[in-house]
């Protein structure tokens, strides 16, 4: 059954293998010449490759090789990369968590700094923040809230588990640590650390 393929068959096989595009029989003929039974060769090849990792298929009169559908998963390898959330993203997430649902403008008012476009995207991509409708005020801004994944990632059973302001103060987390560096700023500073996010 696995006979040595003849040269015509090999030529068809090679031509299909290197082709940039699926080929019609007429296009194949330009390579493999007029001699030889092209239909038979294609049928033989399709049969030969049927159970393999690569199949020869015909779509709309054009032939091409493609990987077997059940192997798609191996052609795409996922790799986890642990990355640190930027400070801007971390702060935005914290504000959403403590004040949800909040609009972007509200986040900016609390942070005292503009929220760059990518920041919310990163948080949504991480699966921690979701759009939660619109605020019924002029402009109907989108409002954001945290997700269930947010709770599970941070080990919270509910948002009520978040430490309150008094807890934060007691833990010294309200002490102005970096103020000297940051500038006492309620002035709008467009942050630029979002690219890291």
């Amino acid at each position, binding site marked *: 059954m696995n006979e040595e393929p003849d040269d015509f068959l090999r030529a068809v096989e090679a031509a299909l293998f290197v082709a940039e595009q699926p080929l019609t029989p007429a296009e194949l003929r330009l390579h493999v010449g007029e001699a030889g039974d092209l239909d038979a060769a294609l049928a033989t090849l399709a049969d030969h490759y049927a159970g393999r990792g690569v199949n020869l298929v015909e779509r709309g009169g054009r032939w091409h090789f493609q*990987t077997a559908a059940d192997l798609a998963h191996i052609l795409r390898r*996922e790799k986890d990369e642990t*990355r640190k959330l930027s400070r801007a993203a971390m*702060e935005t*997430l914290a504000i959403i968590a403590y004040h949800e649902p909040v609009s972007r403008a509200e986040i900016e008012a609390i942070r005292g700094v503009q929220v760059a476009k990518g920041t919310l995207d990163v948080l949504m991509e991480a699966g921690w923040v979701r759009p939660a409708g619109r605020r019924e005020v002029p402009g109907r801004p989108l409002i954001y809230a945290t997700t269930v994944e947010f709770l599970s990632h941070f080990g919270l059973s509910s948002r009520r588990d978040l430490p309150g302001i008094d807890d934060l103060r007691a833990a010294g*987390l309200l002490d102005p*640590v970096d103020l000297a560096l940051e500038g006492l700023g309620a002035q709008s500073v467009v942050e630029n650390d979002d690219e890291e996010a």
Partner: protein
Amino acid sequence: MDDLFIAPTPPRADVLTVSFESWEGPLDLLLALARTQKVDLREISILALVEQYLAYIEGARKLKLELAADYLVMAAWLAYLKSALLLPKEAQPEPSPEELALRLQLRLQRLHAMRESGARLMARDRIGRDVFVREKPEGLRLVRRARWDASLYDLIQAYGQIRARTQPVVHMVAVRPVMTLDEAIQRVGSLVGAALDWTALEAFLPEGRDGPMARSALASSFVAALELAKQGRVEIRQEGIFEPIFLRASLPEEQAERLL
């Protein structure tokens, strides 16, 4: 690729119009000349080769061809080698011309070997010329999935920092040990009515105070006394400078007249 397999056409003895640009330096020319002698470079006659080269250079000179300096340097060196080789053995200089000739031969062999190897390499089945790979492979994709590293501590710390940064700052002034003027007026005013006779200022001070509080109470009570005197509610008496100060409530006018 054909030119790889055949060395550039070797010059025929009678044709000297070959452009020197076709040679890659004197060694290249020598190799081409050597290959007109024999296929096996190990058996070429160096003396004959030298003569071939010198004749070639001489012919080029007759045609007034511009010759690169390295061809002339090689010609001079070969002329020297030739004369040394022709000397009787015992008169030969060091290093021996035989050794120099051997060196030249070895170099020609090595260049020849590499030239042939290069040609054989080029003649192999080469990707894109003889064998082909897929034009547009789909590619194995590596999907990088970001896993964000953030702890609850990071979260609450970030929130703490925002709050610390954006809370309006309230200045709380610590309570200092003072008796205000208002307090003193209140106190002195009420106490002075209770005493009918002259009473020392110190008697109006709150008891059990010392230090800054006592001094503040004394100063405030004195100023209160002056204020009350100005209002006509008390009278002040002092015997002399730094003497004790006495207060008494000022009497209503009719009462004062009766007492006088």
